[in-house]
């Protein structure tokens, strides 16, 4: 055995004569290349088999899949031995849509579909044009109409009755839609030659990034009413949304600033030489290149930010996580919170995993 074989990614397989059964050859190169490696593989296989076996036993073989309405006795009988997936068909409407009027829940469901379609279109390179901005404005307006109603024969639903997945998507998407322009302005401000604007931007970014989101949310829920003139109050959801926009703006600003720094000086100078004004220079020349540079880290920021919207649980806003936590307060189902958390975790996972795959594919193609 040469020392080179210990280097990660060393092309060992290529050096061996290609003989024998391909399966055995694969096993030999990937699992049993040396004695310690073989022992490690066997131990890992044993642990993995035991883990999968107990999960199958708990999650599938002994699990209860359906029970008569609101009757958890079958689940209690297998408690500790099997999962109670029956809680999901029992509670999924509440978990997904919260206290939205039951007969009107097609409206939040349609909003979720619209959101997903909007995300999907935004990832297509063919749609990376100015029209995408109009598409976003149109879709967000349509979603607002669907959720609130009050026009076109839809009954009005006040936002204290909103809940579940649409609220999570609203907090994340509107946070992004407003946080992104804010981030661009602050990033430009931080690179500006004007001292007052630069120091204001630095102050804003460092203050927001220095404290946890929880404290910003507390601030939004407790201090906001103090800031406003007496008798004037805005809704709790909107307050949390403002906190999230401010939070997103600061983090996005730092990512965009990284992109601005990556644009070669010559581009700025060429734009100046053409006599473009500051705003036209940035809008037409600098920003398109800067943002293209930082698309992968931007997507990673979006993922972080999508997960962080779950923090509104702490100030009592009914997002997906809060409805899940509320669904298991019901005494009959109290003991089956693990199943509900797994269900909600799967929903978050699907969104985040799709975004992270997308970010990886962009990195592979260089964002071009």
């Amino acid at each position, binding site marked *: 055995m040469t020392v080179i074989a210990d*280097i990660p990614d060393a092309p060992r397989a290529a050096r061996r004569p290609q003989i024998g059964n391909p399966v055995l050859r694969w096993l030999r190169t990937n699992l049993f290349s040396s004695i310690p490696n073989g022992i490690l593989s066997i131990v890992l296989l044993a642990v993995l088999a035991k883990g999968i076996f107990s999960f199958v036993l708990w999650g599938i073989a002994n699990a209860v899949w359906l029970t008569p309405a609101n009757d958890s006795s079958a689940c209690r009988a297998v408690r500790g031995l099997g999962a109670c997936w029956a809680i999901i068909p029992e509670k999924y409407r509440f978990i997904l849509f919260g206290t939205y009027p039951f007969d009107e829940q097609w409206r939040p469901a349609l909003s979720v579909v619209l959101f997903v379609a909007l995300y999907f279109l935004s990832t297509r390179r063919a749609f990376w044009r100015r029209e995408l901005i109009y598409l976003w404005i149109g879709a967000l307006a349509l979603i607002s109409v669907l959720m609130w109603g009050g026009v076109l024969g839809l009954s009005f639903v006040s936002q204290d009755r909103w809940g579940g997945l649409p609220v999570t998507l609203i907090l994340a998407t509107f946070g992004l839609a407003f946080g992104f322009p804010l981030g661009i302005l602050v990033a430009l401000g931080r690179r500006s030659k004007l001292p007052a604007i630069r120091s204001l931007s630095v102050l804003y970014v460092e203050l927001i990034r220095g404290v946890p989101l929880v404290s910003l949310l507390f601030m939004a829920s407790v201090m906001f009413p103090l800031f406003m003139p007496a008798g004037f109050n805005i809704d709790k959801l909107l307050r949390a949304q403002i906190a999230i926009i401010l939070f997103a703006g600061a983090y996005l600003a730092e990512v965009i600033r990284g992109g601005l720094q990556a644009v070669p000086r010559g581009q700025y100078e060429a734009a100046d030489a053409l006599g473009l004004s500051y705003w036209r220079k940035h809008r037409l020349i600098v920003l398109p290149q800067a943002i293209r540079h930082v698309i992968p880290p931007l997507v990673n920021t979006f993922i972080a930010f999508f997960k962080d919207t779950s923090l509104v649980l702490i100030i009592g806003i009914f997002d997906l996580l809060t409805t899940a936590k509320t669904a298991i307060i019901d005494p009959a189902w109290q003991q089956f919170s693990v199943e509900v958390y797994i269900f909600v975790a799967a929903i978050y996972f699907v969104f985040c995993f799709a975004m992270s795959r997308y970010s990886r594919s962009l990195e592979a193609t260089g964002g071009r």
Partner: protein
Amino acid sequence: MTTDTPRPPPRSRFFGAWGPRELKGLFWQVLVITIVAGVVGFLWSNTVTNLSARRITTGFAFLGREAGMPIADSLLAYNPRDTYLWAFVVGVGNTLRVAVIGIVLATILGTLIGISRLSANWLLSRLAAVYVETLRDIPLLLQLLFWYVLMQALPAARAAWRPVDGVFLSNRGLILPAIPLGLPQLWVLGTAAFGLAVVYLIRRWLVAQQMRDGKLRPVWPFAVSFILALPVAVSVLLRVSWTIEWPQLRGFNFVGGLTLAPEYFALLIALVTYTSAFIAEIVRSGIQSVPRGQWDAANALGLRRSFMLRQIILPQALRVIVPPMTSQYLNLTKNSSLAVAIGYQDVVSIANTTLNQTGQAIEAIALIMAVFLSISLSISFFMNWYNSRIALVER
């Protein structure tokens, strides 16, 4: 002979050195400052009116009052009759307790998983990849609630699990055997720390010597004598006892040993596993960033593998690893504030209780900000210092 010398840009006779560009800049700055000052002033005047309407006096005088809130689990001694100020300090202690231990454990776990992802063993690298992907794509708060629910579902103290003798896992948390630390024990530990500092200085000196004449001088005799032998000698001389205190089940709870309350334990597990997934990716990309030529060159020189990793690969990988690692440490510290969701009383939770009891919203939030800004600044300061030490020295 006439040459076209570039003419200086036209200056306005009226404004002198103030060209149109400078004027425009000045105008924008004045505009932005006026708007910001206007908004802040408007909010401030509203706040003052609202506070006086609610008969809340601003200022930090309330910190001297009796807190009266219970703190179940704390590092520092606390009594509900203590002041709000002390309650805050206890909260900061709790935050640091979870953040410091969390950072250490997450670094170890994350490094192991990051290296596992690069392993030649297909199964190990796949498992590490699944671990990273799963934990990164689920919100931390959800993971925290999940761990906490699992903690509560553990058996009662009487039926506690005993994975190893003397270690109990029950719905009272994790109970470990402990060595009670008194003044004599601290003296011995202090000696060991002193020995560590001395060995560090000796090592620097030895390396400097080696730079001069190229001779390799072993550091381990000094390490053994100062870090091991000296504290042992002090311990024997002072007759320090190192008896292990084993936890005992008495009635419904445990006596003795070290107890990690379920809230603390759940928070620690959630923070460590979540952050380790990010650290694993940082470590992996750091190691991959070292060019293959460096491995080949080290091998060609016939260096031992441990020497190669320590002296050739790691120093280069660390340059890529340290800056993003700093932000992960900061994230872990900030994420420890999620403690409020499961009732572990960190500084945010205590500030929130204070806020509810006294109505001193601005002061409570200002204290949270002050605490986190100073923690963030100290971590960045330390990591920047470390980063500048390991940075590439170019000729």
